[in-house]
């Protein structure tokens, strides 16, 4: 009982934040720039959206330790609003994405206020149940077109100049959104605000006694995470030209959890790795005739049983950076 697991193993914990490593960021940017010359740009753009979604989800789980099982609600609602703004109102993508992000943020405020009243498992259940409510609303509201979803959403032009139907323009726009979102997440995680959140996760009673209004901190990070998830969802609608009930379904919340877990919860880069793997799996398995859902489930189980720190998390442990 005592030998197999060390005490640090029992908590979802993030390694301490390192100083910015500029060489890695430069390499990452370079990879982002050359990717569309090797991989189908539309697919790469879609993957980036899900990577940003996973990073946004991880912002909440990694810093505050709160597992939200309803992040599809933010992703999906922004996807719908952005799609509606593009298609029915004819707004440019920039404005539509901002609208979607704001929608997700306000939804995050409502869901956050209710759910942070409970902790741990209760929090996960409440977010899941509230997200399911949004899912049913997506069926009822007139503008979502129920099962059909919003199809053939026009992409329009970015900055009023470049046609987003050009796949390279499309990819670099998505990449720009991803970089902005990722930079924000890095900044938030490394800020004093991020440090306070980690302290709350480690020892909430002490932080309360030190005079921190713990719930306000949690609420703010919840809203930030929801808003960034929304940004990802809005961009995804523009990229794949579709917003449907799949985006708000609980399976999407599950997928994003797997991405973060597989890459490494609490690591900054982990969710990106997880996002690439999960999305690629779904893409390449789609033709193989294998049951994708079962494969994803099996990966989930194996991941939890064998490497809970995720790929990047385990790598950092091996390198002794932990």
């Amino acid at each position, binding site marked *: *009982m005592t030998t197999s*697991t060390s005490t640090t*193993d*029992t*908590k*979802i914990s993030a390694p301490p934040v390192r100083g910015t490593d500029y060489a890695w960021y430069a390499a990452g940017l370079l990879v982002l720039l050359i990717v569309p010359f090797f991989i189908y740009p539309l697919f790469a753009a879609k993957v980036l959206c899900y990577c940003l979604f996973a990073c946004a989800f991880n912002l909440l789980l990694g810093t505050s330790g709160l*597992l939200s*099982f309803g992040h599809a609600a933010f992703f999906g609602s922004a996807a719908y609003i952005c799609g509606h703004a593009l298609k029915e109102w004819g707004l440019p993508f920039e404005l539509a994405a901002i609208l979607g992000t704001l929608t997700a943020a306000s939804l995050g405020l409502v869901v956050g206020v*209710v*759910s942070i*009243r*409970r902790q*741990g*498992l*209760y929090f*996960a*259940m*409440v977010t*899941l*149940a*509230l997200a*399911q*409510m949004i899912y*049913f*609303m997506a*069926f*009822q509201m007139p503008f979502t077109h129920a099962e059909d979803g919003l199809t053939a959403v026009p992409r329009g032009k970015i900055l009023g100049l470049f046609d987003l139907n050009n796949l390279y323009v499309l990819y670099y726009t998505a990449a720009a959104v991803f970089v902005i979102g990722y930079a924000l997440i890095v900044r938030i995680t490394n800020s004093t605000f991020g440090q306070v959140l980690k302290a709350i996760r480690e020892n909430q009673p002490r932080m309360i006694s030190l005079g921190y209004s713990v719930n306000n901190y949690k609420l703010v990070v919840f809203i930030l995470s929801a808003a960034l998830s929304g940004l990802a969802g809005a961009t995804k609608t523009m990229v794949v030209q579709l917003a449907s009930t799949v985006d708000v379904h*609980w*399976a999407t919340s*599950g997928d994003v*959890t797997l991405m973060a*877990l597989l890459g490494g919860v609490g690591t900054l880069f982990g969710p990106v790795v997880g996002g690439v793997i999960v999305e690629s799996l779904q893409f390449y398995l789609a033709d193989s005739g294998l*049951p*994708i*859902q*079962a*494969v*994803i*489930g*099996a*990966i*989930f*189980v194996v*991941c*939890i*049983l064998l490497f*809970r720190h995720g790929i990047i998390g385990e790598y950092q442990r091996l390198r002794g950076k932990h």
Partner: protein
Amino acid sequence: MSTQVLFGQLLVGLINGSFYALLALGFAIIFGLLGIINIAQGTFYMIGAFGGWMLLNYFGLGYWWGLLLAPLIAGIVGMALEKTLISRMYKLDHIYGLLLTYGLMMFIMGTFIYFFQTAPRPYPVPPELQGGYNLGFMFLPKYRAWVVLVSLTFCLGTWFVIEKTSVGRNLRAATENPMLTRAFGINVPALLTFGFGIGVALAGLGGVLAGPIYSVSPIMGGDLVIVVFAIVVVGGMQSILGAVITGLSLGVLEGLTKVFYAQGANMVIFVIMFIVLMVKPAGLFGQEK
């Protein structure tokens, strides 16, 4: 509006409430005893229903055998999973337990969809329970009355076992303080396995009962489990009786909403959860720790 419609929906609500109560009860037992959020509770409901269907179609065993064996199958599958996989989660952060059962749910559901597709398969009402009673104000199918009766019997029976018998006393002791219970020579790990088996067998029972009404399909438990979550949150997480009462009454409320405001029927339970969380975060029957 005719009373026919009103009582008809009331009955549907009562039936759904029976399923909610069975699943929520099993869920509450598992959560109280193991500290595991069993997202796969709906999957065991599906396994129960498929168990009955398979017994009928592959072995020619009828409804009554199904009713007896399918919950046992669900329970045994559950106990095997607890022994091999879920028991590894007890020492870890509780979140991993939730994620593990989520992965199991995806795996089992995905495998069933692969082999059986999502189209519903009929599972006939047994000849003994066909037909119904004319109550004057409404027609009551025998089978539906039977479902409510069986669910209530099992819910109350489970409550009785937990509250009034020595097995239940051990279970409660293990929930309260596992270390101390072990010190008294009670085999707590075996008790946990048993408790998990009971919890999912109740879901399996719900599944067989639901077969003739809703047909059998791999996706039948997927959305149901989230409603069960909401019910358990409203009732208070560890309250056995709370789960049963809340399950039944929210089922009825859902039925009534269908009559008066059909668009809101899917959402009413979640709205109630929202309100309860604002007013009494520990749930109606729960106690704040």
